[in-house]
């Protein structure tokens, strides 16, 4: 079958001549299109001209507005021809020309005629064209025909109407929703594709109605769905239903039998869809996984690359959460490393890296090295990340893994790839003591020839923290000072800071560092000069004597204890005046961060290219809002505002959520209310709060909302007093009270008389975590050691049977409401033990650090050791109390 694919150079001239479109020109073709106006239409010739026009469009040629309009008008003339071949081409080019709405009118009647033609091909195509180019107003005119077409006995016509319905649902949902009955009938069609399209549309129509989707799935999983494509849809919708219903952990998972039975379907696409669906079930058990893994394993040795790819990709995902379940496939996986398809090979490698054991590391690394050069950057990143986690899993193997990383660091590659490697080395240096010296030298060699400023500064910062602690800090100085000579201003400034850190920590190096820093005083860049001056002064470079005191170390190594984005916001709001900027006024709350943060644990706060742009500061917004209300002005500084907690179900008449604002002696509940009924106006809206289950709280102020019109959110507040500095907890029940007035939505007129009414909201709780701010520290060990050991409180707790270690860890983090540090909230798969580091600020501005050590045994019993240090020993005790009561 294989034939020589390219006729090489000598033949090429001949080949070009064969093209029927040789020398084609837009201008000439547009002239040829005048043939469309001939009274005696030559159908074949017109078809050819349309083909030429389509060829031009396909090659990326564009028509001006005038040209397009002219062609469109000419094409409309062709409806006079009875030639079916030509008509097909007319339909095609109308879709390509995308006529404007005033132009559409010209073809509407012709298309509507075709829609009612006796020729099925005309009907089907006219529906597709008309629905593509039409707007809402026209749609109401043709709706009747479309509805009929959905149940047309010709499957092509029915499919055309159904597919058009799926598209129209995006723009005119109210019209398409009226076809429900017809679509439902079409689902029962004997034609395979009609069933597929009808099922897709029906699901789209009902997707927001959980019950309806559930009913649909229930009835169809019992019956016979004919086409494999429709069966795939049914599997998707079934998993959706499973996802939404299975809250209870006990008992059989609904519809699992159906998914499992699909694994025995005759079509491969259905088998695969079902296997994938099973692996993606939340909390899937090993017993449920087994049959799915078995069919995927069979696919691994298929002769079809697509099948192998699909299977290995799915197993790769499974390996992230259930590595043991995949180990059975390891032999098949290993043979895929040499697969001609590099995507398959990469996926196989990374799966093996996740499931492999210590003895297989060296063999795997050898195989990877061979193929690393011929895969794309995006795959390389995947491999690097897999190797990083492997190295953390088997620290003894650091030598071969570190060598591998440093080798690939020297090769060509883009920023993302290089960053992934640097991040990995940084993590290994930090977490594996034996790897420190060699890792730092690899990084130093890398910055000698690094084109990425961001990476250079990141490495310099890291070097400043870790380099001085090595056995021979001197050897790093040359690399660092080279940066001052050779690089751009940003890197030079970073290098100056790094030099200063060496000077501060290594007494013997100090005089030499001063010499180097003094040279930097003549740098052409302000920032570099300023930093050099600053460090010379703080380190005592001028009189070159004296101990470096703790303040200096704190200044050089301490982390900024406020999030950078908050600082930026506060600085922007700062108005230059007599009063200096006060850094303690910057809110410390870490805003919810995107997940990407987790993927780059090596990130250090160099302040350069601050990667996370937070959404607009809500903390700031709340502060402004609350300080604008006189009743709350005496409460002092806002300590923390919670994320909004929903107090109503989705899609109810009134949507209410609450934000808890914590002050030292007060708590303010901010109820955000939305009225979703156009026919109502609510007035004098208050929330009646019953605090009988919250003994330490007493209500002081309730601030009603005067009026709450339809769809324009408003707030009402209730404030409570509580004992100062005490993390009082309690439960509050809420009742929304208001006066409701009828509104005529057409005129907007409101009736004068209103009726009192009330609406039960869900309860809300003040928990211990509400008194804790998530404030991270960049170097946990330093921070920990700088705290008074006498404040330390240690105790052990049994957490009972837990689903997994990861679940137990996340439960404790949530309970305490603290910021996980250094990515320790991520629990590696299969770990039997885990240490998690947390940091936060407790009410009263008390810094708290927590070290959690978890262990899990066979029957999933989890034990935990909790070590707390804080600025105030009483708070250390309080943290233990929270855990003991949680």
């Amino acid at each position, binding site marked *: 079958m*294989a*034939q020589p*694919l*390219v*006729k090489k150079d000598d033949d090429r001239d001949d080949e070009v001549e064969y*093209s*029927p*479109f040789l020398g084609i020109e837009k201008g000439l073709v547009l002239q040829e299109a005048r043939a469309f106006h001939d009274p005696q239409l030559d159908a*074949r010739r017109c*078809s*050819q001209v349309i*083909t030429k026009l*389509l060829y031009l469009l*396909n090659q*990326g040629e*564009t028509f001006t507005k005038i040209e397009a309009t002219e062609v469109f008008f000419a094409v409309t003339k062709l409806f006079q021809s009875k030639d079916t*071949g030509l008509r*097909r*081409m007319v339909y*095609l080019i109308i*879709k390509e020309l*995308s*006529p*404007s*709405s005033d132009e559409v009118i010209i073809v509407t009647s012709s298309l509507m005629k075709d829609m009612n033609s006796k020729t*099925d*091909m005309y009907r*089907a195509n006219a529906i*597709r064209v008309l629905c593509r*180019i039409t707007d809402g107003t026209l749609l109401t005119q043709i709706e009747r025909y479309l509805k009929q077409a959905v149940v047309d006995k010709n*499957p*092509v*016509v029915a499919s*055309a109407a159904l*597919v*058009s319905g*799926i*598209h129209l649902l995006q*723009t005119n949902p109210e019209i398409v929703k009226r076809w429900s009955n017809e679509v439902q009938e079409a689902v029962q069609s004997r034609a395979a*594709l009609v069933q597929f*399209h009808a099922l*897709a549309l029906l*699901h789209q129509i009902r997707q927001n109605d959980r019950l309806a989707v559930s009913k649909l799935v229930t009835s169809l999983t019992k019956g016979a769905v004919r086409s494999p*494509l429709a069966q*795939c849809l049914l599997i*998707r919708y079934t998993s959706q239903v499973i996802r939404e219903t299975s809250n209870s952990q006990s008992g059989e998972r609904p519809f699992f039998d159906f998914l499992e039975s699909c694994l025995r379907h005759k079509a491969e*696409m259905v088998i*695969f*869809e079902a296997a994938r669906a099973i692996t993606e079930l939340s909390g899937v058990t090993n017993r449920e996984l087994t049959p799915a893994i078995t069919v995927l394993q069979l696919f691994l040795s298929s002769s*079809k*690359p*697509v*099948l192998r*790819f*699909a299977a290995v*990709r799915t197993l790769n995902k499974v390996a992230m959460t259930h590595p043991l379940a995949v180990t059975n496939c390891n032999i098949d996986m290993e043979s895929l490393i040499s697969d001609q*398809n590099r*995507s398959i090979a990469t996926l196989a490698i990374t799966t093996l890296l996740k499931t492999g054991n210590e003895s297989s590391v060296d063999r795997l690394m050898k195989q990877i090295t061979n193929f690393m050069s011929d895969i*794309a950057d995006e*795959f390389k990143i995947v491999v690097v990340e897999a190797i990083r986690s492997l190295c953390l899993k088997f620290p003894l193997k650091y030598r071969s893994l570190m060598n591998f990383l440093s080798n690939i660091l020297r090769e060509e590659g883009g920023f993302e790839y290089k960053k992934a490697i640097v991040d990995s080395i940084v993590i290994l240096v930090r977490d594996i003591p034996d790897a420190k010296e060699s890792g730092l030298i690899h990084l130093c060699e890398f910055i000698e020839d690094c084109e990425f400023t961001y990476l250079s500064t990141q490495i310099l910062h890291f070097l400043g923290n870790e380099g001085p602690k090595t056995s021979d800090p001197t050897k790093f100085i040359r690399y660092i000072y080279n940066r001052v000579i050779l690089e751009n201003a940003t890197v030079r400034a970073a290098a100056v800071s790094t030099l200063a850190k060496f000077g501060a920590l290594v007494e013997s190096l100090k005089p030499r560092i001063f010499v180097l820093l003094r040279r930097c005083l003549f740098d052409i860049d302000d920032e570099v000069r300023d930093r050099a001056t600053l460090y010379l002064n703080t380190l005592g470079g001028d009189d070159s004597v004296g101990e470096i005191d703790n303040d200096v170390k704190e200044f050089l190594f301490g982390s900024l204890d406020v999030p950078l984005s908050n600082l930026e916001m506060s600085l922007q709001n700062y108005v230059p005046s007599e009063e200096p900027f006060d850094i303690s006024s910057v809110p410390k709350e870490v805003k919810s961060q995107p997940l990407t943060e987790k993927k780059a644990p090596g990130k250090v706060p160099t302040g350069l290219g601050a990667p996370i742009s937070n959404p607009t500061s809500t903390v700031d917004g709340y502060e402004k809002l609350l300080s604008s209300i006189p009743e709350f002005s005496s409460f002092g500084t806002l300590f923390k505002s919670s994320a909004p907690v929903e107090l109503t179900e989705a899609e109810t008449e009134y949507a209410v959520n609450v934000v808890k604002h914590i002050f030292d002696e007060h708590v303010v509940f901010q109820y955000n209310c939305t009225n979703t009924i156009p026919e109502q106006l609510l007035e004098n809206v208050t929330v009646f709060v019953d605090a009988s289950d919250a003994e330490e709280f007493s209500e002081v102020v309730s601030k009603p909302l005067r009026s709450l019109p339809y769809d324009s959110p408003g707030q009402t507040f209730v404030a409570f007093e509580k004992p100062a500095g005490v993390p009082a907890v309690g439960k509050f029940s809420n009742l929304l009270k208001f006066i409701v007035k009828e509104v005529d939505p057409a005129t907007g007129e409101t009736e004068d008389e209103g009726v009192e009414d009330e609406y039960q909201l869900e309860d809300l709780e003040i928990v211990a975590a509400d008194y804790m701010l998530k404030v991270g520290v960049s170097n946990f060990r330093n921070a920990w050691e700088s705290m008074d050991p006498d404040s330390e409180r240690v105790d052990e707790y049994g957490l009972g049977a837990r689903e997994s270690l990861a679940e137990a860890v996340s439960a404790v983090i949530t309970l305490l409401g603290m910021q996980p540090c250094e990515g320790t909230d991520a629990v590696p798969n299969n770990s039997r033990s885990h240490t998690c580091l947390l940091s936060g600020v407790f009410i009263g501005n008390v810094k708290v650090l927590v070290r959690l050590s978890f262990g899990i045994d066979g029957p999933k019993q989890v034990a935990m050791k909790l070590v707390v240090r804080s600025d105030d020993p009483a708070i250390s005790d309080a943290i233990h109390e929270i855990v003991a009561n949680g």
Partner: protein
Amino acid sequence: MAHSYGEYSKESYPSVKNILLLDSEGKRVAVKYFSDDWPTLAAKLSFEKSLFAKTVKTNARSEAEITMFDSYIVVYKFVQDLHFFVTAGSDENELILAAVLQGFFDAVGLLLRNDVEKRTALENLDLILLCIDEIIDGGIILETDANTIAGKVATNGGDNTVTFSEQTLSQAFATAREHLARSLLN
């Protein structure tokens, strides 16, 4: 203005982002995009160029091949100097895409009477374009069975499509094809 159809979630139904038919140098023979992921001609051409470069050395002649590319899944198959591609989002069921590709590939084979190469494809560009139009509508799969697709392209009505076989098909448009080719050359 025609609607540009939006993107749909994996939840709803399989969705195809583009169908490409390129020659052995990566130049376009026929392409159709169903997604706004590539808003400009330059973006489209650059996607085609990198995709071609990435796949050209692979052997996708006996079996369809597959790759992950820019967070898309692309299935592809080559014959003579023609390269067939079907692209979808990274969550798509690979085997469904393979079915679309196979339908496209085989239907073109039927329509060109197994004389599948760039020259015949260009001479019958109308058939190729109609073929793509019968496979995907605005990203939604219309049909994957090659006989049905070729039947819909080559016949005048939709009535007898299901029973259309290769034999009758060849006869049905042999003459038409020759006429068209000749007149385009003039």
